[in-house]
């Protein structure tokens, strides 16, 4: 039982890291621009494709990573410049819808590209050796990927936190997220700040994309859609617009998902005599498979509940004021 719990715990943390990485990017952009960038998930997808093709070309892993992150950042910055900057100041919903349009362009652009080079829609991802297999810690075996996700996530998040708290640019970003007009009056060049938010968010999404791709084993142009929804939920749970909140939300969501998936296992794993045989049978009958597949729905119900009752997220934060 303890073994099972530990393994699931590690799973939760590693999934949480992925969600946190993606949620942070969303939160950074939302914090400053009040824009929910649904194309964020497609950045993740684009990164996976960059990585796949770099690896297919037998480039060394380091170079592939650089290309992947750099390419994704480029796409992110282009997205900001071409699609979002012209509509700054527009109502929130307009920006949200635009982000869907951008996503469509990225998805179909990738689809078109794969057609042109005559690859199928769904491509098997060439996972690097480093990320395959399992590591054993005594009796506990954990997929190497999970450890890497967890460690990478934590390192990147720590670096981000240092950046945001210790550097001038990071300070400017926090100021801009709190009060954009006042930040402008300080002499902060908000174009630069916004571009930085997009660049960092894209970079983090790229890493998440790679890890997702390895986990899924294959990539397709639509793989970014569900993750971005999850990332959004994570960000909202933690308190939308706050980076710390996004991190917390990511891990909470990871935990929630693993918990919901793991529940079916409980019926089998409970020690004999822990609950009466009737209850055990009951659990087995009603909780198998069904809960896992309803998992996504539950996650959205959680989102709606949070939006209704704790719109500022678990970490309570005041809504920011705006100068006109």
């Amino acid at each position, binding site marked *: 039982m303890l073994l099972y719990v530990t393994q699931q715990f590690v799973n939760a943390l590693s999934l949480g890291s992925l969600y946190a990485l993606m949620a942070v990017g969303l939160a950074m952009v939302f914090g400053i621009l009040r824009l929910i960038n649904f194309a964020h998930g497609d950045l993740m997808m684009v990164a996976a494709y960059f990585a796949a093709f770099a690896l297919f070309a037998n480039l060394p892993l380091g170079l592939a990573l650089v290309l992947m992150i750099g390419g994704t950042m480029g796409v992110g910055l282009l997205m900001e410049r071409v699609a979002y900057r012209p509509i700054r100041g527009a109502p929130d919903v307009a920006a949200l819808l635009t982000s869907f349009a951008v996503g469509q362009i990225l998805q179909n652009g990738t689809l078109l590209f794969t057609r042109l080079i005559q690859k199928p829609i769904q491509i098997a991802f060439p996972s690097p050796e480093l990320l395959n297999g399992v590591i054993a810690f005594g009796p506990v075996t954990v997929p190497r990927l999970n450890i890497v996700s967890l460690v990478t996530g934590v390192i990147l998040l720590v670096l981000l936190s240092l950046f945001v708290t210790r550097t001038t640019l990071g300070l400017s970003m926090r100021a801009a997220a709190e009060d954009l007009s*006042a930040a*402008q009056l300080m*002499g902060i060049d908000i174009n630069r700040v916004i571009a930085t938010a997009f660049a960092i968010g894209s970079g983090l999404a790229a890493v998440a994309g790679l890890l997702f791709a390895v986990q899924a084993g294959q990539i397709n142009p639509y793989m970014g859609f569900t993750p971005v929804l999850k990332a959004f939920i994570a960000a909202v749970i933690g308190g939308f617009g706050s980076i710390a909140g996004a991190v917390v939300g990511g891990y909470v969501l990871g935990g929630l998902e693993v918990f919901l998936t793991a529940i079916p296992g409980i019926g089998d794993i409970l020690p004999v005599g822990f609950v009466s045989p009737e209850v055990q049978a009951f659990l087995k009958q009603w909780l198998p498979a069904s809960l896992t597949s309803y998992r996504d729905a539950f996650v959205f119900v959680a989102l709606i509940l949070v939006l209704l009752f704790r719109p500022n997220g678990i970490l309570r934060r005041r809504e920011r004021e705006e*100068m006109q």
Partner: protein
Amino acid sequence: MLELHDVEVYYGSIRALKDVSLAVAEGELVTLIGSNGAGKSTTLKAISGLLRPRVGRVQYRGQPIDRLPPHQIVALGISHCPEGRHIFGRLTVAENLRLGAVQRRDPDGIRQDRERVYELFPVLKERSRQLAGTLSGGEQQMLAIGRALMSRPKLLLLDEPSLGLAPLLLAAIFDTIQQLKRAGTTILLVEQNARLALEIADRGYVMETGRITLAGTAAELKANPQVEHTYLGT
């Protein structure tokens, strides 16, 4: 130093300013008085770049600045301390001050100026590590002014520094503003508290519903019966 010529500013389709022309000479303390909604804050925003005039020119030291983005206007030496303070509540006092100097590249100069701000407002030094949102109204006003000073501005735009302050604090703040003027900063002061403003100003303008209705030296305005009745009455 600063000139506005026939400035018109719109909020969407609503005209907020019409035919606004004013001037501030170097070293002067000029005040803009008028009741709520007269357009005083809008005027300052048109100068600092948060709003763009649809018609008219804003010139600073002979150079047109009405098409520049706010951060470039700050770089020219204009600092706007906005109405309602707008300090960054989730950042510390020290971080707020640091942000005031965000464009500067001289760490020694920045440190000097920070010390000067702490001298002016000792309570800020005490609270330098506290989150700005936990400060009282008066302290936040001091922080806002201090922050605006951190860029070593040549022209300081102050918007309603008296808002929400207790009388004792008011006197102190206005004292400080006078000190700044004496030290050589040019100041354009927007104020609802006309009495205090005219006490310390050299010249003034009166605004009503988006237009400038009166102009003159502080003495002239104080003596003006209309001004006395509308803005200085008890």
